[in-house]
């Protein structure tokens, strides 16, 4: 039991947060609970504190509209949180799509799919292109462009307000990640993930590698959804500073040799010395 907890502690905590957040949204719509209302695009916490998706708000700006104060404050709070503390934690601790893509990745690993498809054929920078494009299209067409096609919004909005054909989008992502491209959606395409990668680039919470402990088993790289960020494994004691790290903690919990741990970002000077 203890061993399971040790091996999966962050995974369990993440699933709990993800499910709890969605549950509170659903409870707000079904039973009128006032803890967390709305959805991940914009919400109200205990009927007072606004939270908004800063990427959606930026798209609305690009579309030529000035959003109201609540959406602005909400976007500001969320941005500040991820910028200072959370990094890209939205992706692994909040976003419900993460459960779908993690499942696809899990099946891939267990099924040995990765061995068949070894070559990377798509750039992990597509998401930044997609993000740029979304602003251009929002500007040209006067509406938040990614929000109209976003499978992320379709999922969290669908869970709370009715899915419609939204399940098709989720299934598409699942199959794409399972058969076409490893970590295809979250690791390559999703502009929201890209946005949070940029916002959280300098956040305080970081994973840190302790090279002397590393036995080069490479279990961490196997589970990491963004394995480029682990380039230092076995080479150098560095913290995982690339914004793409989702702070999921999978690498930390699979490492049997205590070579990876969560830490607070070190100051620049200290890093230079090493």
């Amino acid at each position, binding site marked *: 039991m203890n061993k399971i907890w040790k091996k999966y502690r962050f995974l369990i905590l993440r699933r709990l947060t993800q499910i709890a957040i969605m549950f509170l949204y659903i409870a707000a719509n079904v039973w009128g609970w006032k803890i967390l209302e709305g959805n991940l695009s914009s919400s109200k916490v205990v009927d007072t504190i606004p939270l908004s998706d800063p990427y959606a708000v930026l798209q609305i700006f690009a579309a030529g509209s000035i959003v109201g104060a609540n959406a602005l404050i909400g976007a500001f709070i969320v941005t500040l949180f991820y910028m200072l503390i959370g990094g890209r934690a939205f992706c692994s601790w909040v976003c419900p799509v993460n459960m779908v893509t993690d499942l696809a990745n899990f099946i891939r690993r267990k099924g040995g799919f990765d061995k068949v498809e070894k070559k990377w054929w798509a750039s992990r920078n597509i998401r930044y292109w997609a993000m740029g494009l979304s602003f251009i*299209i929002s500007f040209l067409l006067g509406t938040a462009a990614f929000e109209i096609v976003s499978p992320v919004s379709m999922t969290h909005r669908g869970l709370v307000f009715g899915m419609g054909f939204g399940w098709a989008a989720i299934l598409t992502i699942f199959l794409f990640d399972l058969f076409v491209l490893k970590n295809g959606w979250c690791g390559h395409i999703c502009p929201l993930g890209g946005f949070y990668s940029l916002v959280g680039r300098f956040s305080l919470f970081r994973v840190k590698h302790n090279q002397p402990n590393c036995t080069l088993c490479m279990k961490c790289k196997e589970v990491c959804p963004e394995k480029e960020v682990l380039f230092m494994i076995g080479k150098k004691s560095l913290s995982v500073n690339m914004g793409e790290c989702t702070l999921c903690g999978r690498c930390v919990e699979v490492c049997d040799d205590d070579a990876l741990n969560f830490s607070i970002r070190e100051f620049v000077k200290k890093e230079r010395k090493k």
Partner: protein
Amino acid sequence: MNNSKSLKEGEEMGKNKAPKNKERRRFLIQMAQNVAIATVGGLVWSAFVDEAKAAPLLLRPPGAKKEKDFISLCIKCGLCVEACPYDTLMLAKPGDNKPIGTPYFIPRDIPCYMCDDIPCVPPCPTGALDIDSVSEVKEGKRVFDITQMRMGVAIVDIKDCIAYWGIQCDACYRACPLLDKAIFMEYRQNERTGKHAKLLPVVDPDYCTGCGLCEHACVTEIAAIKVLPRDVALGKVGSHYVKGWQKSDERRLKGSKGIQTTVTPRSKKSAVESLNEGIDFE
């Protein structure tokens, strides 16, 4: 397409001392590929977005801005939907064929009950629902006035409204929260019987809020009174007609140079003269 790959191959090339401009060419080609893919993707994406945002026939929640601004502002959070105690509002789902995620209502199913305190408007975080359009600040206090909202306007289908057949029905009239203002009954003689009156529902767009209580109440199989978006249902006179019997409207003529006519050799004489010219009247 692939940066990490290109880097690696670039390194290998460096080791083989391959000519540098080959590397540069590869880089330029990759750049061109990226731009081409982004352009094609962008065009498909735009076409889809353009298609998906057009929905002129939707009824929006109370206080909604003009459709164009509304579509641009609404962040699709559903806070308005959750605030409505009657479950009037819904968010468009994928497959509904409506701008995805935006709130709307179908009055025949559940109309808007015109709550005095308008719970649905203040929660809107983006201002897509404009609180100022349904309230006033009086002495530092916000006073809501739901009758100010203009979600749509009710239109009567006079062929299928049974009151226009001469059958007595005033279901819509009695359902209207603004009865005798937004909807009133007009008397007309029933020419078929010769001795009865018809009581006909007529809507005044100046007062109708588009709540749809009338549509909800209508007794015919498909409602003979329907709420449509105002942009769709209402016309516009334009500035070239003046209500000469209204002082305020007449004032619009002030400063105009009067009616300008084109002068031709014929128009020297009066119209009657000119038309009758050359006709022998005896």
